[in-house]
């Protein structure tokens, strides 16, 4: 039944020692994507000041790859401007993790979508428009 151990060392490291686990109180933006039915839910919290992501935290229900991609996505987004944050793709997350097994690629898409959802929440709360940002798909797993 098992095919879990095709993970890169980086994935295993970010799964076993995930960075930025937790919540941010009164976060500038919070995004939750995925659904429990399919086994993955990601929630990303962003602290944004002066258009720069000061801090990022996450909580994830999901497999090893889901945890690792959340961890890496929050690492990549810290210190970025909102525009730069929007440019973080699933590919960038995967590359930073030295790749993912093919069946786990959807986890990196979920991470990208969670970032977008958190940025969207930030833009809505502050009444600003972020060029190129679309409203989040509530449930990307139905694709």
């Amino acid at each position: 039944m098992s095919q879990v151990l095709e993970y890169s060392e980086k994935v295993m490291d970010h799964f076993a020692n995930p960075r930025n686990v937790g919540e941010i109180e009164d976060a500038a933006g919070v995004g939750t994507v995925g659904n429990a039915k399919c086994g993955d839910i990601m929630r990303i919290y962003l602290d944004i000041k002066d258009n720069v992501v000061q801090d990022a935290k996450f909580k994830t229900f999901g497999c090893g790859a889901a945890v690792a991609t959340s961890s890496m996505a929050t690492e990549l987004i810290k210190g970025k401007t909102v525009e730069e944050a929007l440019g973080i793709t699933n590919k960038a997350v995967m590359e930073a993790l030295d790749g993912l097994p093919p069946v786990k690629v959807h986890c990196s898409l979920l991470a990208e979508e969670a970032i977008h959802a958190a940025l969207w929440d930030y833009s809505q709360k502050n009444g600003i428009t972020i060029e190129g940002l679309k409203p989040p798909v509530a449930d990307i797993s139905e694709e």
Partner: protein
Amino acid sequence: MENIVYLDNAATTPVNKEVFEAMKPYFSEIYGNASSIYKFAGKATNAVDEARRKVADFLGAEPAEVYFTGGGSESDNWALKGTAYALKDKGKHIITSKIEHHAILHTCEFLEKQGFEVTYADVDENGVVKLDELEKAIRDDTILISVMYANNEIGTIQPVKEIGEIAHRHGVLFHTDAVQAYGHLPINVNEQNIDMLSASGHKFGGPKGIGILYVRKGINITPLIHGGAQERNKRAGTHNTPGIVGFAAATTIADNEMEYRIEYETGLRDYLIDRVLEEIPYTRLNGHRTDRLANNVNFSFRFIEGESLLIMLDRSGICGSSGSACTSGSLDPSHVLLAIGLPHEIAHGSLRLTLSHENTKDEIDYTIEEIKKTVERLRSMSPLYEDFLKNR
């Protein structure tokens, strides 16, 4: 060897040392083809005959009713396809259950594509087949009922004897996939109304790549493997003499030690179940509390996902398995857990631990502590748990 706690005995078991010793001569010394004429091969022929007798004894069957195969999956395929082909003029309807192993379910799906019809009977919340529904599903053109002896994921033991009775009352053949039960529970094919039975060597201390199909005398199923006169013209292929000897040796040992093993494993199992349910909140036991295999434990931990749990336990040297989608390569969690009525998100958080008589209480204590730590850690990372605590 690295220090591991092996709790995946439903996946496979180590070959028992005595079994290995019994097999050894049949690789390079007594290597003759059991079908050859000359005296030198006779020793191999005798070994195969003797093994067949031992297996038949364990089942309460006759040696001529035991066929050696390449494993449990082949036996299941043969029982279903062989019966379907042989009886297709009598009828094209088969009944099975929703919680069978994929060796049965995928074979049924294959037969459906060939024009057969299959009814997948429901199970109750413990995973026990609903007998009244099963009987109602029988039609004039029903040729076979196939229900497993004990479930590989949740360990629930089926009322095999009663199912056989129902089948026979309606003139229908009864096959049981006993891969998880053989060598672990007493079996008597006559008392339990079993017409065909599949078993696999590596699930009870025998080698991999060897299985049996018991077929009651008088039942003529179509062969699956063609190409030789072995197994009374029913299953071609040179006899796997070491495997056959190993299967029989493991059967005899399992039979002799059965009472002790069941008592010992049940003790460890119940200790594990009681402590985990007591010490880890929001946890449920899947499968029947008592009518389950002595070595099977299956939990669902709410708010966490099974693959994460498995990898964390693996890092602590604990080998288990899960019904989570992530470990099956699909989006859906285990069909067995869904069939007993678990919602998807709870089915994703399942953990199966299958013990053996070789596990110690120390190992179980260590495992419980590691599960507690890991579940707590994964819950602290879970948005589902966060929401649950906030909405409480």
